[in-house]
């Protein structure tokens, strides 16, 4: 495993996990704001 590959995998792990979290967060935000608007109307 050359150092470049290694570096790439490590930062990939970091950013992929962060991105997964953000997408989960985004999906949840979309779901609840829809609910919020429905309730308010």
């Amino acid at each position, binding site marked *: 495993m050359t*150092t470049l590959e*290694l570096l790439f995998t490590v*930062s990939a792990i*970091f950013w992929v*996990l962060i991105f997964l979290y953000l997408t989960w*967060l985004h999906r949840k935000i979309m779901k*609840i704001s829809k609910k*919020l608007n429905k309730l308010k109307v």
Partner: protein
Amino acid sequence: MNMFYMIKGENMKKIYPIIIFLVNLAALYMIFLWAPPERTLGDSYRVFFIHTPSAWISYLAFTITFVSSILYLKTRNFKWDLYASSSALLGLLFCIIAIITGAIWAKVAWGLYWNWDPRQTTTLVLMLAYLGYVSFRMAINDKEQRARVSSVLGILAFISIPLSYLSTIIWATIHPMPLIPTSKLQIGVEPAILQTLLTSTFAVTLLFLWMLYITVEMYRTIDTVESVKMENVK
């Protein structure tokens, strides 16, 4: 990127994601290109710049949970319970990152994924604490009870971390691993290395704080939805 500020909508919020994106970009540049190769480990030590900040964040997040738990018990304001739980959730995320990258770093630096190095084991114990805390919160339905009792857990788990660290150090002295090199890294020697470390830590901290803000807002909206629903029911 607009999807992340849409809860509040003020344009001030639009700038945060952009700033964070730029800072992190700069940090990545420094890690990959700017920082000089280290004498004993060559370029592979750069993994360190990604592992250490996330480990530092997982400890910071748990401190935030600890402080917010105390404040909740004192003020009984649910705001603190929101911070405690969101910070724990994020802490768990960064802790997992820290452990994976730490294992890779250990493989590179010492040839084996898990060498019971006191820091590594304590981070694992920290992850156990987060998992315990998060799953405990999921197992309680009553909002007030959940906040109060998980605060106590947040306090107890926090004080047990240094004790685990202490006992793993004792353990390490008794079972010295032949492979541990003289010292981890001569950080102090190369100013460039230090600067890269600081920038990347600063970048990841900003990222963490922003994610914490969004998570807290998300849970706050869930609360408002719930209370609005309750109003309609009454």
